[in-house]
């Protein structure tokens, strides 16, 4: 078992937190059909220092000499959390905002994403939002941009089943 990545030190002054290897092991149990704790494990790995803290830097996949690919396990734990409807974390809400954008038009709705991800914290980001708006960095319309043949996208969202 990898002990190097079981706990990691993030930049700054945070204490060492759960690392990629811990998630790889967590996924091994959460994905086991004989395990009856799937939802509890989804909750366990969805809070602070959980799957939604992963920045997707891909260092763990790059470094692992055993081909464990911990980032892939983190991703699959995220999917299990969605299937078990454990989606209250801000990170999960961020992913939901992407799904809503895709369903409604196909492209990312940048007006929606910040308030949907963090409805309580978003007002505190108002000064940055204002500065970005002054520079033209926020879309003028809250409507989602629509791609051609978006009925195909809607059908895919409806039909494609997750299998983990």
């Amino acid at each position, binding site marked *: 078992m990898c002990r190097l990545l079981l706990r990691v030190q993030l930049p700054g002054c945070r204490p060492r937190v759960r690392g990629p290897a811990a998630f790889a092991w967590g996924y091994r149990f959460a994905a086991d059909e004989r395990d009856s704790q799937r939802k509890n494990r989804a909750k366990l790995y969805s809070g602070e220092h959980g799957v939604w803290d992963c920045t997707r830097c891909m260092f763990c996949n790059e470094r692992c000499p055993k081909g464990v690919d911990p980032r892939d396990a983190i991703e699959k734990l995220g999917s299990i959390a969605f299937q078990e409807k454990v989606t209250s974390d801000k990170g999960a809400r*961020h*992913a939901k905002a992407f799904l809503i954008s895709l369903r409604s038009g196909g492209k990312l709705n940048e007006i929606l994403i910040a308030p949907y991800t963090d409805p309580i914290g978003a007002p505190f980001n108002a000064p940055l939002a204002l500065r970005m708006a002054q520079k033209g960095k926020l879309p003028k319309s809250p409507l989602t*941009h629509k791609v051609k043949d978006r009925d195909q996208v809607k059908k895919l969202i409806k039909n494609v089943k997750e299998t983990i």
Partner: protein
Amino acid sequence: MPRQFAYYPGCVAEFSSKELNATTKALAPLLDIELLPMPAATCCGAGDVAEAKPNLYLTLNVRILSEAESMGVDILTICNVCTLNLRRANKMVKEDPRVLEAVNEELIKAGARPYQGTIEVTHLLWFLATEEGLSLLEAHGPKGLNGLKVAPYYGCQLLRPSSVMGFEDPDRPQSLERLITALGGEVADYEGKTRCCGFPIILAREEVALKESHVALAGARDAGAQVMVTPCPLCHLAMDAYQRKTEQLMGEEYAMPVLHLPQLIGLALGLPTKTMEFKRHLVPVDEVLATVGA
């Protein structure tokens, strides 16, 4: 005859970072490339959809690949995240015919074109950092960067995982350095150039994300850089738009202008500054323009 690409700028370059899209489009004729629009292409999901619904992520990205295949040309991107998502999906279906078959079944059911697996995905940086790309720049006779000291910032997802990206050594990349040197700039080397900017979690875990971007910003500043350049619009948002917040959190000053890669090339090739829309940056680039003489 210009080299044709199916152009996939990604959502951020189309909306909040329009300056990147505008500059790339203006630069294309100078680089002898033609960017063909992809009107049916959706968002790649940015890793979020892959995390929530991996099968849906794969199918949506293969649908994008299939649109380019119907156009008969490879895809050119200007975003690290889009590049990784599209290349990863491409690798998954090319390596396993059963996966391709299952994805195509879903695409056909939804009325979309099935994918045959003939498309490659490349980033503008990769295209330009080859012999072919560098000769295109030389042929244009670059006006040059006048010794501007530039900190290359790669970010993560154009380098890692190398099994999917594979253009260069993820620990010792040289593509940005080659371009900076070829354009008449000076490289400011620093350790944080391959570190994460934190942007994927900046809305959900702001403090963690800002501490990540601090590593690169402080490294570039300490290396004496006048400007940072990045091939990714998400890294650009983290470094440029959030820079003041990072300064407030860390109690430090960076005053680091950040350019999109096509803007750096545009400056060297003498593209009009108005076209490159520097006014949309949150950290002013006036001193950079003065050094280059733009």
